[in-house]
């Protein structure tokens, strides 16, 4: 049913893109160490000058670019990195990821306003709290199959939001206001001359967190993102990442090769939750006030869309996906009320023409490239159809 000989222009375009991204992959895989470091360095420099006005005027003519870079763009990227651990690496479908973002956000709000803790302290506490909540959610539910897990996590996300709404101690629907900004680290100002001025960063105080300038928050988010990338990348290339991949590929075989699958699935949930929580803390520290409705289901869906759109399992892809998902609706503000309409349509089109995502991980791509004819395609990926646990191991 897979007519391989049929090559219309669209398929050819698609294949062209594929081979392009493949060759990128290859070159990257074989690049010497120093070359990689050069690329990392360049990327970091680009990230640092990204909020410059010149770039902003193109990227975001309608709204403040540095703030946009902080959230939604930076925030979505961070959340996508976290969700990628759960969905992309361990293969668990989570539709309630926003819950952990909310828990982080509320941690910042509660500890900041009621206990007057410092942002950095709260960051640690918030991350731990989210991780624990990930474990609490995961422990009873991770035995469920993929789609059941999806709906249960969706329910969990809603439960967290509604409980927040109904709990007067944390402000109920009013949420919490007056959340403190992170303390100013240093008043150091980027020199207001020559080069820095040229790139539009002259006079910026990158470590002073006020209400008006979005750049310091962006740099804060950037720092957290970089940490999350390092964290997630290290895990991916370790025993933990291999365990996740093996669970995703064949849970039964993994367990029979000595992988304590339940423990590792729980770990994936905890890590994902921790990253989501970090996002929440950082977001709330800038937002001044949060309400339960800042954490709707649709945000979970959007982040999931970002992960899949970019290429589930592949970090650069996932980040690209998050960037686009956050940026496109803002960039097309000119379309006004039609922008969500267009966004929805774009999502469908991208999935139709590139279901494996824009920059798929090599593993995943191979997985998607060939299903077993007929219905196989919509068969097994995340969760997969009933792996009648033992039945398949057996005869």
């Amino acid at each position: 049913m897979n007519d391989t000989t049929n090559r219309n222009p669209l398929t050819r375009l698609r294949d062209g893109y594929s081979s392009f991204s493949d060759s990128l992959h290859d070159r990257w895989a074989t690049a010497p160490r120093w070359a990689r470091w050069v690329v990392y360095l360049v990327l970091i420099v680009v990230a640092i000058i990204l909020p410059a006005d010149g770039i902003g005027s193109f990227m975001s003519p309608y709204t403040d670019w540095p703030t946009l870079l902080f959230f939604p763009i930076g925030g979505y990227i961070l959340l996508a990195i976290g969700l990628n651990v759960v969905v992309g690496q361990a293969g668990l479908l989570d539709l309630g990821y926003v819950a952990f973002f909310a828990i982080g956000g509320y941690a910042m709000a509660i500890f900041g306003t009621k206990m007057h803790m410092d942002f950095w302290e709260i960051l640690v506490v918030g991350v731990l709290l989210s991780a624990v909540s990930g474990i609490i959610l995961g422990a009873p539910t991770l035995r469920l199959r993929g789609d059941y897990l999806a709906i249960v996590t969706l329910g969990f996300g809603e439960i967290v939001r509604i409980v927040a709404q109904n709990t007067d101690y944390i402000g109920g629907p009013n949420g919490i206001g007056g959340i403190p900004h992170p303390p100013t680290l240093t008043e150091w100002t980027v020199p207001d001359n020559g080069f820095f001025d040229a790139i539009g960063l002259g006079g910026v105080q990158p470590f002073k967190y006020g209400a008006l300038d979005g750049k310091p928050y962006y740099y804060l988010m950037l720092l957290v993102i970089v940490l999350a990338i390092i964290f997630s990348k290290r895990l991916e290339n370790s025993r933990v990442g291999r365990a996740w991949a093996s669970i995703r590929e064949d849970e039964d075989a993994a367990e029979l090769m000595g992988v304590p699958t339940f423990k590792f699935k729980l770990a994936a949930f905890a890590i994902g939750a921790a990253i989501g929580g970090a996002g929440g803390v950082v977001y709330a520290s800038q937002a001044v006030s949060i309400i339960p409705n800042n954490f709707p289901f649709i945000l979970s869906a959007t982040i999931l869309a970002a992960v899949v759109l970019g290429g589930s399992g592949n970090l650069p892809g996932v980040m690209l996906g998050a960037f686009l998902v956050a940026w496109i609706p803002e960039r097309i503000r000119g379309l006004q009320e039609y922008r969500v309409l267009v966004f929805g349509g774009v999502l469908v089109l991208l999935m139709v023409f590139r279901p494996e995502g824009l920059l798929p991980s090599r593993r995943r791509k191979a997985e998607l490239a060939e299903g077993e004819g007929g219905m196989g395609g919509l068969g097994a990926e995340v969760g997969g159809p009933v792996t009648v646990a033992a039945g398949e191991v057996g005869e």
Partner: protein
Amino acid sequence: MRSRLITVVGVVAASATLALGASACGGNSKGGGDNVTIGFMGDLTGENSGIVIPPKQGAQLAIDQYNATNPKVKITLKTYDSQGKGEQAVPLAKQAITKDKIAGLIGPTFSSESAQADPVLEEGKLPNISSSATNAALATHGWKYWHRLIANDNVQGAGIGEFISNGLKAKKVFIIHDNSEYGKPLGETVKATVEKAGAQTSEDAIDPNGSDFSATVNKVKAFAPDAIFFGGYYSAGGKLIKQLREGGVKARFLSGDGSLDQGLAKGAGGTNADGSIIGCPCLIDPSGTASAASKKFAEDYKAKFHADPAIYSAEGYDAATAFIEAVKAGNTTPEKINDFLTKVDKPGVSKEIKFQSNGEPTATDVYVYEVKGTQLPLLGSAKNATVK
């Protein structure tokens, strides 16, 4: 796909180079000279745009009328669509301050977005007047640049509560709210007020996105109240009235400004909403019975937008008027406009345009409206209005 990716990368690179090359000739054209920009921020395209577009039109009307007088300094109205969401309002506020360099802002219109965007406006020293953010807590932050031309929910809730106790003499009151940051505190205030006056109360909450409120209806039936107060918006309010009436509940229905819309009666269907009382610290007076200014405003508004003035249109008009007065007085910078706002005192359409030092309006009138068909004629001030 590929070409697109390349385009994006290319453009990013190009704009980066541009930025590098263009060096420090940055500074945008200043707002001064013969033109001042005033912003309007709120949910212009989202679900609640129905209560944001009237104040925007009110503001537009005021500014157009002013510009028509051929003044030395003209005013432009620039709109910012926050969709009512804080996370969109914040970057827009920054854009307004740093890039667009507007001189004043009307809005944000809702309380939750205000809570996030107002600190930005404060630090950006941009005077702002909300025409409809009624959450009481907003006034407690000591903001210098923040103002509103609408009495807050506490004032409103107390006003409606008094009306329930005095005007209606209700002894058993059932409070329903929509669990929103607007509806819940409003409901709580009403509850506290009527309880102080000796009424017996019970309460429940609905999910405004749900459609079946029968659990609440059953609770109301069991309680058998004289009056029901609903804190929430009209889209849920209409459904709620309908289901209450169909469930056989005949008690009088009351609500706050969020329900002050024809949609309430439409949603309730037939004559279900008739006799319901809506309280609002705002003035909607299409027939112009309140004052001559109100009458003129209603006529002008109708002429321009082919519709009756709706909720907050008068407040929007008045907020714009406050800025217009400032400009008329020769103030074109945000700082100066803000200074002017501390002392402005001019009769507006809806109320006296005059602010307390915390930014709240001095006027605290709450008006009540009675639903008749799909009309919402003004009944009078909550203090002394009565119903048959």
